[in-house]
């Protein structure tokens, strides 16, 4: 759709950026991951996050051409590209979350907009508002059981699935990009709460943090 303002809000690499967890690392620290750690948490900050709105049929082709991925048309679908660096996730029948390496999002938005022309769609850059946490380790399913109300049993939550659900007293997007890894996409203003929650709930698994 034309007649929108698209704006690259990402600054030059020289400008210092702070991840949503900067204050949390400062205040709560980051327990080192060790051999006993049954959960390891790693933040992947500063990625490009785009919200894509519109009809699946309209968007599918554009996404495939620009990203080489199919738009997941089924609910809870999550698709990654071959590198695993780019992903697109179903959020609602007319809403998807695109996550790409930081810095790619503006150009991608431009290319998608150009390709989609006057079709009915919207793209919103939300990169500054969220961050991605990776969880690995054998106790992750149990830690998730403590934290999210959604059934994260591997049988019910296969690789390639992603949901928006309740995390403690806030919300998260929970994704399973591969067999060993789970991802949480959390909102910036709730990031500290989520971090404190994970450290607290993960204490019995000797949770370790690989700080960004």
């Amino acid at each position, binding site marked *: 759709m034309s007649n929108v303002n698209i704006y690259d809000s990402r600054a030059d690499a020289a400008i210092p950026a702070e991840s949503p967890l900067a204050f949390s690392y400062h205040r709560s620290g980051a327990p080192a991951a060790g051999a006993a750690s049954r959960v390891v948490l790693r933040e992947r900050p500063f990625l490009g996050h785009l919200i894509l709105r519109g009809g699946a049929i309209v968007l599918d082709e554009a996404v495939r051409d620009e990203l080489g991925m199919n738009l997941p048309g089924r*609910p*809870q679908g999550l698709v990654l590209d071959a590198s695993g660096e780019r992903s697109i996730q179903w959020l609602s029948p007319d809403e998807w979350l695109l996550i790409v390496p930081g810095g790619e999002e503006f150009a991608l938005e431009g290319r998608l907009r150009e390709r989609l022309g006057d079709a009915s769609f919207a793209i919103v850059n939300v990169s500054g508002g969220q961050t991605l946490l990776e969880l690995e380790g054998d106790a992750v399913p149990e830690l998730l059981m403590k934290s999210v109300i959604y059934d994260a049993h591997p049988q019910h939550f296969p690789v390639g699935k992603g949901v928006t659900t309740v995390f403690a007293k806030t919300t998260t997007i929970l994704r399973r990009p591969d067999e060993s890894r789970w991802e949480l996409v959390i909102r910036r203003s709730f990031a500290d709460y989520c971090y404190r929650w994970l450290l607290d709930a993960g204490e019995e698994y000797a949770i370790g943090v690989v700080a960004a």
Partner: protein
Amino acid sequence: MFQIYCPYCEELREEEEFHPKGEAHIARPLDPEACSDEEWGDYLFFRDNPRGVHHELWVHAVGCRKFFNITRHTVSYEILETYRMGEQPTITAESVSGDLAGRESAATARQEGVRA
């Protein structure tokens, strides 16, 4: 606590992901200025509030953020169906009056049970 089938996510989800938004199918009058005060008040405030089969509006607030409708029994709390915005229910108080009448009276009777 309910488990609700979201017609957009196409699976059963926990009630905590949803917000109830009151009676379904309350259409805003197309020409509000033509309404009398009484008609406007009726639209704003007056509700069916049935004891039995009820159509209600919910939103999958922590999920797909879509509004949709639930047909639910307000005594047994059984969810009879969920359907998308713009659709009409296939189950109504009238359509199940035979089948549910028994269930409802049983449910009503439950009210008088002894509470331990």
